[in-house]
């Protein structure tokens, strides 16, 4: 891809990443979120978090396929940030819609000038949420994945990378694999026994992990071969 095209392609990728959200809002406007909209929104935002994580993880293996694809790396950060964006919507769905948080009362309070109502309502549902965090392993792994994505998001600006140093930054950002793994585990632990819906996400993640392992192994073999040849070529000069 020619470099001069990148800003335009970036604009398109932004739009594409916002399409799911637009679709969700459209369905909400059309009153088409099904009988249990909280459930629909929870699954929708959760699905798109994993999809975007997988797409961002696919960037590196895909660009290795051909030299011309190498500037795909310019899109990886924004894809990762969109994954974090949908993960945050997913978490917000849990906090404000799933937990029993009384949104209408909070809104009415704010409209009447009592900003504290937001906190008052939160305090009412907080014990249930705390209970969830302590007791439910699918919530624990899901929350851990979000915390990882949060750490990656706040360290994503260029200046933070420079301040941290490339090595440290890379070490931290490898955690994205852990986040994706935890995300898939979260999915498996939440579905009922015998339900296999998460298998597609799992298969793609496994494929991406294998691609990375295969590449590392291949590079290591190549570099050890080059190392073995070194003395020969040295003697020639």
């Amino acid at each position: 891809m020619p470099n001069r095209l990148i800003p335009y392609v970036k604009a398109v990728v932004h739009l594409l990443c916002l399409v799911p959200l637009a679709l969700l809002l459209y369905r909400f406007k059309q009153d088409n979120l099904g009988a249990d909209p909280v459930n629909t929104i929870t699954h929708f935002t959760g699905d798109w978090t994993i999809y975007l994580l997988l797409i961002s993880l696919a960037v590196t293996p895909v660009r290795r396929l051909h030299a011309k694809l190498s500037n795909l790396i310019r899109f990886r950060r924004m894809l990762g940030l969109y994954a974090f964006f949908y993960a945050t919507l997913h978490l917000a769905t849990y906090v404000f819609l799933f937990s029993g948080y009384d949104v209408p009362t909070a809104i009415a309070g704010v409209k009447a000038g009592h900003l504290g109502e937001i906190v008052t309502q939160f305090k009412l549902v907080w014990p249930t949420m705390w209970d969830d965090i302590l007791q439910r392993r699918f919530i624990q792994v899901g929350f851990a994945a979000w915390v990882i994505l949060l750490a990656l998001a706040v360290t994503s600006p260029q200046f933070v990378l420079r301040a941290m140093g490339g090595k440290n930054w890379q070490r931290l950002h490898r955690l994205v694999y852990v986040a994706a793994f935890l995300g898939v585990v979260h999915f498996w632990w939440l579905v009922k026994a015998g339900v296999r819906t998460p298998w597609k996400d799992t298969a793609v993640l496994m494929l991406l992990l294998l691609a990375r392992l295969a590449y590392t192994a291949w590079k290591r073999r190549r570099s050890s071969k080059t190392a073995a040849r070194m003395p020969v070529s040295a003697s020639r000069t």
Partner: protein
Amino acid sequence: DEALKTVASKYTVSDAQTPFAKATHYNNFYEYGTDKSDPGRNAHTLHTRPWTVQVTGMVKKPQTVNIDDLMKYRPIESRVYRHRCVEAWSMVIPWDGYSLSEFINFCQPLPSAKYVQFFSLVDKKQMPDLPGGYDWPYREGLRMDEAMNPLTLLTFGCYGNVLPNQNGAPVRIVTPWKYGFKNGKSIVRFHFTDKQPQTTWNEISSQEYGFYSNVNPNVDHPRWSQGHERRIDSSVFPKTVPTLMFNGYGDQVASMYNGMDLKKFY
């Protein structure tokens, strides 16, 4: 839709009803797919006629009953019940049927029969998406006193019409004080026994789904807090409401569990 001739019933709650479209397009009927929107799309392949119901086990005389005779056996009552799913959502549905106790009396179980187990239909031809990994057919069961409780409804219809396929046509069970999965759909056999029968979800994961599975806000499911529920009514966003012990039917059912530790027998 086939309208049913129904009579009024005293077993009715006044809560706002769930719209028909929501109650018929948000179903757990895994034989037709594991997503809650699947049965509404797929269950049209179910043939509800001819249909017979077998009566087996500890009864005076095993027999086979035709569905049309079964429907005519007693006047069909219209009863509005709260329906609480273990997944922490709930509906309010007008069911049409008569007390299972009437049919059990007809079956003449032996005094030694302590439980009744019901079997749902399993037929790969009518269920092309039947998921693997489950020990079909779907089985549920009740202790005899629970089955004889007048609230336990042998159900043939909802909203004044015969049951839509996805809701368990042509005959199902509704026990409103228990989680929804206790309510076997599309029943083909009643089996009377002296031992606590196998029930599908209990067999799959006994630490998650007990035999009794009474609605109980004090006993959490490993994944869902049972303290509250999303009440699916006509509003776009269901309101979260507190879950009531025995789904609010304590007056009629609590005495059956006197002296039982409901944290142990969940």
